């Protein structure tokens, strides 16, 4: 697969998980307030389309996408990629069900006009929060399994504990700000839902701010972790990655990632907080959209560096240690 495909696949699948988490939060935040639920409902549009984009990205770059759809789960015994594929499938199914329970809700769902489905969905609506929790858990499990797929000895630069951390950050940052941006757009178009939006934005800002701080720590820890390696050849690969990030091919993107994804994100966060305090939701919502844009660009850039600057062991000068290790025990 080309790097672009991996970037889109991981960022968007993680964003989908985050979007689902955002909707679960919204569901709990609204409690029984129908007006709030109606407002938040639009956010349910984010998760599934984004997940579908990520699936298309993954499949479109396989040599045999249709076979992949059927057979990627075949090696659950040893392959993290297989496991990722299975968990993702389960997550997407759950996300679809969860999304249906929002969009086809008979009273405020956008698609309540479509015949038959709302009637089938109606008895399950009260279970929506529970479905949400289960989906959320599966989504988080997916984040972990997806990270494990890249944490293999053949990819020393990705075989770090910051990898799952970055995936988690992407999910929360991109996913929650995505839903917040959609809701902001809704507010700016219809000028309704001030109160739920305000509450939601505060939560968004809070989570986003914490995530950005965690991101800063994660990025710094990552560069120092890359300097430590268990084997000589892993060290060479990691050094090449670091060089590429700092002064090489990916230096520009890495710096842009910091400037946009961290710096501008903090600026936007502050810019959202100020009008939000003054209850100027028009401005706050506009800046929330900016926040999402900046965060998404930052995450995409960051993931591009993640995959691009990575040097697999197979590309490092011939791996003589592994060659001797591969001989294995002689009988």
């Amino acid at each position, binding site marked *: 697969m080309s790097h672009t495909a991996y970037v889109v696949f991981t960022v968007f699948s993680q964003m989908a998980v985050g979007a689902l988490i955002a909707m679960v939060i919204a569901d709990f935040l609204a409690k029984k307030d129908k007006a709030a639920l109606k407002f938040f409902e639009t956010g349910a549009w984010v998760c599934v389309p984004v997940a579908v984009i990520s699936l298309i990205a993954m499949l479109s770059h396989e040599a045999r996408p249709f076979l992949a759809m059927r057979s990627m789960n075949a090696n659950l015994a040893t392959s993290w*990629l297989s496991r990722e594929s299975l968990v993702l499938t389960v997550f997407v199914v759950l996300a679809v069900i969860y999304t249906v329970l929002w969009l086809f809700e008979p009273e405020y769902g956008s698609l309540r006009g479509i015949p038959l489905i709302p009637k089938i969905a109606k008895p399950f609506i009260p279970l929506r929060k529970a479905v949400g929790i289960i989906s959320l858990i599966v989504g988080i499990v997916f984040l972990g399994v997806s990270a494990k797929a890249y944490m293999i000895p053949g990819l020393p630069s990705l075989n770090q504990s910051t990898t799952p951390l970055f995936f988690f950050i992407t999910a929360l940052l991109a996913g929650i700000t995505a839903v917040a941006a959609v809701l902001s757009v809704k507010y700016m178009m219809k000028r309704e839902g001030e109160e739920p939006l305000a509450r939601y934005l505060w939560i968004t800002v809070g989570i986003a701010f914490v995530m950005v701080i965690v991101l800063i720590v994660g990025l710094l820890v990552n560069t120092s972790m890359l300097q430590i390696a268990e084997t000589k050849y892993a060290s060479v690969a990691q050094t090449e990655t670091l060089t590429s990030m700092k002064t090489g091919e990916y230096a520009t993107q890495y710096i842009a990632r910091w400037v946009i994804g961290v710096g501008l994100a903090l600026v936007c966060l502050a810019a959202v907080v100020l009008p939000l305090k003054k209850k100027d939701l028009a401005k706050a919502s506009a800046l929330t959209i900016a926040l999402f844009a900046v965060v998404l660009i930052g995450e995409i850039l960051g993931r591009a560096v993640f995959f691009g600057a990575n040097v697999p062991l197979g590309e490092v000068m011939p791996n003589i240690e592994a060659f001797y290790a591969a001989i294995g025990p002689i009988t």
Partner: protein
Amino acid sequence: MTTYKFLNVIEKCIDCGGCFAICKDQNKVPEGTARMRVVTINEGKPGEKNIPISCMHCTDPPCVAACPTKALSKREDGIVMTDKSKCIGCGYCGWACPFGAPQYPHDLPENLKKLGLEGIMDKCTLCVQPFVPEEVDREPKPRCALFCATKARLGGDIAEILPVYNEAKVRSTISYQEHV
């Protein structure tokens, strides 16, 4: 029990390309991809070494563990084989392999594209299966080793080649490494 392996006495490899060419010829590997290549490190300087690289048919192959569709498997005689009909070209085995042995040929000629081999993983099979898979497996006979100009590349039953490898690695007690 036969266990097939490759061992390289890299001090003898002269980068003549014989292994590369006979592998291509025997297995009809198309242009742009290679199952076998020689990598030179420290070119032009003392310490220059040539290392023949192909699938090493590892005892515990990371590629077999990694493959999501079970297209890769290790035979009883140790050869790691690819079932091209199951491969989806995801590239994961290429990342898992510490030698970068798996290749994903692109821009294949039309006749090979029609067979659905574009992007499907190809690697050394000890000459058991050529690039276009055949119904019946051939007898393992690593021609890269048989044709190696200096007998640097050894291939075959590990019980047979390991003593040869050990003997080849032993140098007499006189040692003269000097450079002007």
